[in-house]
């Protein structure tokens, strides 16, 4: 329990510091093409890794189950421009229904 709070405090301090620093530092400090490229790539790379682990990992091994079907459904709906919340609900619903079968 306590270690969860440690993580939460790190996030509170770290995330606020980044937001505040952005508003405060002179733009030229970070205005470099390489820095900007890295800033664009970080969320893409991390979210890719997060999706993979969330969908396939199961206690240190890989497993294919209803989560993958949920992801496929989400991908199809997103490509049809369905908004975020219905996509998330649909993915959960499909996974839950498949498990009932």
């Amino acid at each position: 329990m306590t270690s969860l709070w440690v993580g939460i405090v790190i996030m509170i301090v770290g995330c606020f510091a980044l937001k505040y620093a952005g508003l405060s530092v002179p733009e030229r400090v970070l205005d470099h093409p390489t820095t900007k490229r890295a800033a664009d790539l970080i969320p893409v790379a991390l979210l890719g890794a997060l999706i993979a682990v969330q969908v396939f990992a199961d206690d240190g091994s890989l497993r294919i189950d209803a989560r993958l079907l949920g992801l496929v459904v989400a991908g199809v709906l997103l490509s049809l421009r369905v908004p975020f919340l219905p996509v998330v609900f649909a993915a959960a619903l499909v996974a839950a229904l498949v498990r009932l079968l």
Partner: protein
Amino acid sequence: MTTDRSVIVDSLGVGLATGAYGVSFGAISTTSGLDVLQTCVLSLLVFTGASQFAFIGIIASGGNPVTGALTAVLLGSRNLFYGLSLAQRLNLKGAQRLASAHFVIDESTAMAVTRENTRQSRLGFYWTGISIFILWNLMTFVGALAGEKIGDPQTYGLDAAVGAAFLGLLWPRLTSWHARLVALFGAAVALGLVPLTAAGLPIILGGGAAVVLGMLWRPKAAA
């Protein structure tokens, strides 16, 4: 010429749509092992959705909270760059910057930087940021209570909802083949590491490897 009124209406629309998905965060968080207070503290004081989802995702998979927090902060690094482009447009003084920083997120930035003048940039930023903040927190609380009742995340497919939420956050960024390949590479490295490392680490290592790849490999057309 955009009127102030239409800036506010657009901002509220984005605010309602985005704030509503606080319910999915709240429900997934309490089924991932956080309590209602911890869940609400995250939404109130961290207030950057992708980072919050990353943290609970790593906790749910059995990862160390510190690894989870570092991944979340790294994911929050984009807010630093949002702040840079907002600083010139909002033109804020010292204390105003301190009071406004919390509302620097994807959506408030998007609704501010496209405006023609400081006044409308500020309208877009605050109306979007504050409306999301209010609704995101209310809906987090509602979701957190519901999640406590649900208990096991598999019951309603909430474990599948997390992957879908991440895909929803990633989707608008997949505008080039370069971005798609970086995301896929991050996913592949992370999966390769799952059997080999402690939970949580595959994400930060896979993501890190993919950033390096993306920096080294530049498509000719995008020079």
